[in-house]
């Protein structure tokens, strides 16, 4: 079991969190091509990388964004997910 350092609650067990997928911009529905949409929905590149991920903290009902290295399983950064935020996915 891993630990997560929450910006307001400090050290929490990862088991309190539920994974919510990679942070990713949905392509614009009006203009998206079938291929782009299929890439977005199905064809995920699983190669190791540093990525931003959605994680939901169940006890408080708050969504977080983690920056995680999928090769080392290291969580570099933990942030609240906020409306209107922009991240490089």
């Amino acid at each position: 079991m891993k630990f997560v350092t929450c910006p307001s609650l400090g050290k929490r067990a990862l088991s309190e969190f539920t994974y919510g997928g990679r942070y990713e911009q949905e392509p614009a529905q009006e203009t998206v091509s079938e291929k782009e949409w299929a890439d977005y929905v199905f064809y995920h590149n699983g190669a190791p990388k540093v990525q931003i991920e959605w994680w939901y903290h169940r006890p408080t009902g708050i969504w977080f964004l983690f920056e995680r290295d999928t090769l080392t399983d290291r969580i570099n950064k933990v942030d609240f997910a906020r409306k209107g935020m922009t991240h490089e996915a």
Partner: protein
Amino acid sequence: MKLRLGPQPLEWIDRNVSVTFDFEGKRVTGFEGDVVTSALWAEGWKVLGRSFKYHRRRGLMSFANHDINALFQTAEMPNVRGDVTPAKNGLSLTAVNTFGSLENDKGALVEWIAKFLPVGFYYRAFYSPKFLFPKWERLIREMAGLGKINTNWSEERQPKRYRHCDVAIIGAGASGMAAAIQAAKQGVDVCLIDENPFIGGSLDYQFANQRSQSLNRQYLKETVASLPNIQVITSAYVAGYYGDHWLAVNTDQGLIKLSAQSVVVATGVFEQPAVFRNNDLPGVMNASAAQRLMARYAVAPCNAGVVLTANHEGYRAALDMHENGLIVKAILDTGKTEGVWVDEAKKAGIVVYEQVTPIEALGSREVEGFIFGLNGMEHRLDCDGILMSVGWAPAGAPLYQAGAKFGYEPEVQQLIPVSLPDGVFACGRVNGVYVMEDRIKDGEQAGLAAALHVKGDAIPEWKDFRDGVAHSHPYPIWQHPKGKEFVDFDEDIQVKDLKGAIAQGFDNIELMKRFSTIGMGPSQGKHSNMNGIRMLAKLTGKTIDETGSTTARPMFHPTPVSHLAGMRFRPERVTPMQLFHEEAKACFMEAGNWLRPEYYPTEATREDSIKAEVSAVRNAVGLVDVSTLGKLEIFGRDAAELMDRLYTMRMSNMAIGASRYALMVDDAGVLIDDGVAVRFSDEHFYVTTTTSTSDSAYRMIQKKVIEWNLMVTVLNRTGQIGAMNVAGPNSRKVLSKLTAFGLSNDNFPYLASRQAKLAGVDVTMIRVGFVGELGYEIHVDASNALMVWDAIMNAGKEFGIKPFGVEAQRLLRLEKGHIIVGQDTDGLTNPFEANMSWAVHFKKPYFLGKPSLMKLKQMQTRTLVGFELLSDAEKDQPLESNLLIEGKEMVGRVTSIGQSDTLKKVIGLAMVSTEYSAEGQELNIKLSDGRLVKAKVVKTPFYDPEGWLQKSNEGSGEAA
């Protein structure tokens, strides 16, 4: 007691207390402190088990908690490990995997036909014809196996405990103890874990008679005991290493989840057997096994043995035998070892032959002799035991699991850790350090480093304490023309089996392992993988590093399921109406984490009770508790926008006081949830979700609010609101008694929602129903829900009201052809397949999954259809998930089925290939026993297809 020795300096047995138990129907007497194997061996039982495949006689081999040929059966437990299980009074044991008895095992016939069973035989022989496979499988399962499981088991759960420490040290041998002391001296909390009942490790068996080590032993043990910040956990093994330094520590009392800040791995090494013909005869064992037997239990490995060695540890084992008055016929050195123990052995007068080639062990039941080559000649020695000391492999499981990399160090002829993850340290023999004083120093530097890591301080430069002497033979494998040189004792794998696997192209370590099954038995390759790797490297002309090694995954030892399961702490949720359900003696079922009434046993049988409930709803009135539905309240400036984006239907144009079916798909267009949405005001919606998705739907909607940057608040009201549905032709009459609110079609039409007072409290009523009758869904604050429920039950008495449960509701909705998401849909079903294109509004600019649905609309291949069974015999009734067959093809499956009394037939829903979905199409349903029964596609709803009953004005006092 034939092989019991005189008192040993560090023995674990209590000679004042004897224990008696039964083995294969015979009486065995040992001492308190004995393990099963040591007590048996002391009495001269050398045949302890039969091998997995050939049923060859086997004795003890490693005696280190992975002696899988000495497994025993009790009435309750299969595969009791004799090398670690305490001998207890009253135990009754038999050997595992025998036909008849251990002595007369009919399974041994397999060995006669063994040459027709090459490695991979099963894979190829059973590949075709396929119809024979089940027969083969049964035969193999009978023949090859271990203990028998007691099928009359009772549930057993061991609680999981949590512990925390700064530094966890795995292994309490010399280096582990030294690490613990050094770390503790830095002021941090230390946990020192060892799988044995006592700390000490090899100091207490390999060095038991080495007087020069008594000071080290005394210092280490006394200091560990004296330091208050060292917690010693014995008889506990680390089953696995998990991220951020979590260790799963298994004890007899259950699992400890140990969270550490840093970890020192001082697990030592596994002694590896030499591979020569008949190396599995009872009496052939690792030298360290013999030393444990002597030092811990005061049991002789044999009376007159030979020691086959490639390192100076073998000489120490010979000296231990010699000093105990046992005969060492000769030390057979495969090379020309030097060292103190070599000199001592020679001085003691033990015969030493150097540059020896082992050829074969002799003996029919047990070892009787040994043939070896020397100077080109074959020699024979008579002996009743052979000790093997040809090398070691790191007990590196926690290191591998933590992400350490191993590399082969030719200087010590061993795999050693070459890179370690942050906060993980290795010391002692697992790190390739063999000289006792150096092991202590290596432990000290690891303990210091681990403590400094915890404090965040800089760690001094790491010193290499390896002695530059190989303690392992680079290739301890001597093939014999007649075979039977065992590499893997769990799976009976011989040299030719591995050669065969490699010759057939399985020449990658992972492939060879799976094809030959080397290392896949209960000991997980602890004494076979290293030799397997050496063989593969040699035969493919690669180095050990190029060959690679397989990662030893958790669990380190077989771990009881009861320990992994832990206690059951799953919460059960009950609805506000639970008291009523209990008083009505409802039969409950689990729905997600909720308890729901399955039915109320009002009649003699379950079937009749459900029928009575169905009949009440169809003919009078029924009441069902639907509080388990997810209930979300959505309000704010962008509430309508959010609703439009979440659901496939347009919601923003919904009138205030209206309700609408709410269908949700995911990005791939797969149906994931349905419910009912109600609009309270322009900026205020209320929506239900299915019971099982309430948490995930709420979570997902919260996420979408952030992603879409909407001004809206979502509240999960699931537990705060109780809900019930009054359904049936009399439902309006019942409710009229409890409210002044006008319930006629004019004031409260079908599909409308109204907020009103009912039984004196505020409720939301929605005129919808899953079951297809005139009905009202009532949502009310949880604190008033039971009161409202009781009021409706009382008011309904004169109209024949009955509470109904999940089973009746399932049948009622099936008669209406309503789907249950998750039952009639699967992980790929889209709305078109479920005949719900009416619920997809493509004119909206945006909603979840829209691009996928636009594509899926053009490529529909399956359709959910209603069917009725043409054969009505009860024994022919299909089950949910039975397949639909056309010719030889599978064309669909039954998703729901039920016997409808209302319609007097068996009806169901099935997902079929669209070409078979036309009305009137005959379908063949394959029953679980293989027979086919006929059904016919019919229109849904089966019941009240026009929906007149739901829209009825019955009981409003007005003309219909």
